[in-house]
């Protein structure tokens, strides 16, 4: 099929066609951008994805329900608990399995710790793409402590495979709660130090404010989710609006963009919303540790060969660090799904770059991509 997507290059004006990627230090993963640029000014930037397309949806059709959990880790390795959780939610709703309350609280604890870890990388990469190296390493240093917690709880630093159909895999170790609460006590001052280091820096603000403005109508129409849509002023958070797990019992604020330094919906809003979300995650974690009940960590009598009713299907989504991570599972009565569709937040965030990149400088394109917090495996699966 002819590639008729590119505008006619206006060679008289010196327009050029460049490939930014798939191997590029500033794209978040292996993504290619076809840039039609007049020098630095972009006329059109078309994202080309698929360099990490691993066929996860096809593999799901060949793997049993329980056995697919490690694959969900790799859908978004920075927010692996959310991916696990979404899949478990979808299968549990499909098969009618009820999760015990202690397991729900453990899922929330792991999720919010993972949200902090993921946002640390997100804002760290953002500042590194704009040229500041120290905040990134500070974020990595804190993330190492979180990696230690996850290693203690789950056994792995990155791809956790923690959630099981019907519960979770491991219980809290003795002293875990005290250690995490101690970390959280030191984390809030760390965030303030981070703010003093970079968030109020004039160059940083100048590079992000009023760039890549996405208004509320566009954000909804283009299907953005998570911090991206909330920074544009739309108050939509799946933990409150499509509730699951024990989030209805926990108190937290939904962080909506305010135009902190520029127009509402610019890159700075998307950056600062993530910093504020980390503060809210700390709040949720403290409540979860205070309220976690005793009990089982996995539902009794979950069959080994899980066979949901034939013809049934179910869509379930969780509020991941990058947006809505949803799974649509369709069953045909066997112990393998007949169709699994994974819906990720980065997919729609990548789509919007084509319309938003007109008129930007190439350096601003880097700021836009990193503020949308895209990771390649979420887009390509």
């Amino acid at each position, binding site marked *: *099929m002819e*590639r*008729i*997507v590119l505008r006619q290059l206006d060679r008289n004006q010196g327009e050029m066609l460049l490939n930014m990627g798939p191997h590029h230090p500033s794209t978040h993963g292996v993504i290619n951008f076809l840039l039609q640029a007049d020098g630095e000014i972009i006329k059109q930037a078309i994202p080309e*994805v*698929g360099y990490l*397309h691993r*066929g996860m*949806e*096809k593999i799901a*059709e060949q793997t049993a329900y329980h056995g697919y959990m490690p694959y969900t880790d790799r859908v978004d390795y920075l927010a692996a608990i959310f991916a696990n959780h979404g899949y478990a939610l979808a299968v549990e709703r499909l098969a009618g399995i009820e999760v015990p309350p202690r397991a729900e609280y453990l899922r929330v604890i792991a999720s919010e710790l993972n949200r902090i870890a993921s946002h640390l990388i997100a804002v760290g990469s953002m500042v590194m793409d704009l040229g500041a190296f120290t905040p990134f390493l500070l974020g990595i240093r804190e993330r190492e402590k979180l990696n230690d917690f996850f290693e203690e709880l789950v056994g792995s630093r990155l791809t956790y495979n923690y959630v099981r159909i019907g519960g979770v895999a491991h219980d809290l170790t003795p002293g875990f709660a005290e250690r995490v609460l101690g970390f959280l006590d030191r984390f809030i001052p760390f965030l303030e130090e981070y703010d003093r280091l970079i968030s109020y820096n004039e160059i940083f603000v100048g590079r992000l404010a009023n760039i890549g403005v996405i208004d509320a109508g566009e954000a*909804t*129409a*283009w*299907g953005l989710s998570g911090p991206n849509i909330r920074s544009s002023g*739309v108050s*939509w958070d799946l933990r409150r*609006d*499509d509730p699951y797990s024990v989030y209805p019992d926990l108190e937290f604020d939904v962080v909506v963009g305010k135009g902190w330094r520029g127009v509402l919906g610019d890159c700075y809003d998307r950056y600062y919303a993530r910093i504020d979300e980390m503060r809210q995650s700390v709040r949720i974690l403290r409540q979860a540790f205070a309220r976690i009940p005793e009990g089982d960590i996995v539902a009794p009598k979950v069959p080994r060969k899980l066979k949901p009713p034939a*013809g*049934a*299907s*179910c*869509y379930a*989504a969780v509020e991941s660090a990058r947006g*809505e991570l*949803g799974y*649509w599972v*369709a069953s045909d009565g066997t112990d393998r799904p*007949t*169709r699994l*569709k994974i*819906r990720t937040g980065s*997919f*729609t965030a*990548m*789509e919007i770059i084509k319309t938003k990149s007109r008129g930007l400088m190439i350096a601003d394109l880097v700021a836009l991509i990193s503020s949308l917090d895209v990771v390649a495996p979420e887009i*390509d699966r």
Partner: protein
Amino acid sequence: MTLDEIAANVTGSLGEGAVTVKSDGEPCLVVEPAMALAVMRELRDRPGLEFGYLRCLSGQDLPPDRMAVVYHLSSISSRGKLTVRIEVSRERPAVPSVVGIWPTADWYEREAYDLLGIDFPGHPDLRRIMLPDDWEGHPLRKDWKDPPEIYGIPTTRKAALDAVRPPEGLPKVEPKKEAGAGAAAPDEKPPAAQEQE
């Protein structure tokens, strides 16, 4: 709003037969391809429905003769959820594109075209997205078979493994029989495990 109320709203303005309600499996509205655009526009624009947020668009292969496209919609103002399903024939699957209604459907439809081969007339730029442009076939279909070689790279490691012969002196290990291999198989260590050290 319940599913029946939504269906009543839509049939009220577009006439009977615009949608049917499917309550078993996953409750959803089933729409014919010919009425798809009108129904979708109604779902997005009608006050009271206002499903302006397309959460997910999936294709599904239903051999031997059907394919389906499933839409998951949400309303941000009323927090309602809705599932819409369109079924087409597997011979020449074609579902009208909803890019004009929800711009986010652009890449979702490209993905359904790429992996399943569903055509979306009305889409401005329907071409492959996940797989390379010169890929042949649609892998998510149930009748997909891997070719032996892609771009000169073999698709299995069999050749590489055959080239590495196992060291001499290891006794052969018989493969376990399939039937009765669950709880009834005797727990025996293969002899190679002890001799390899």
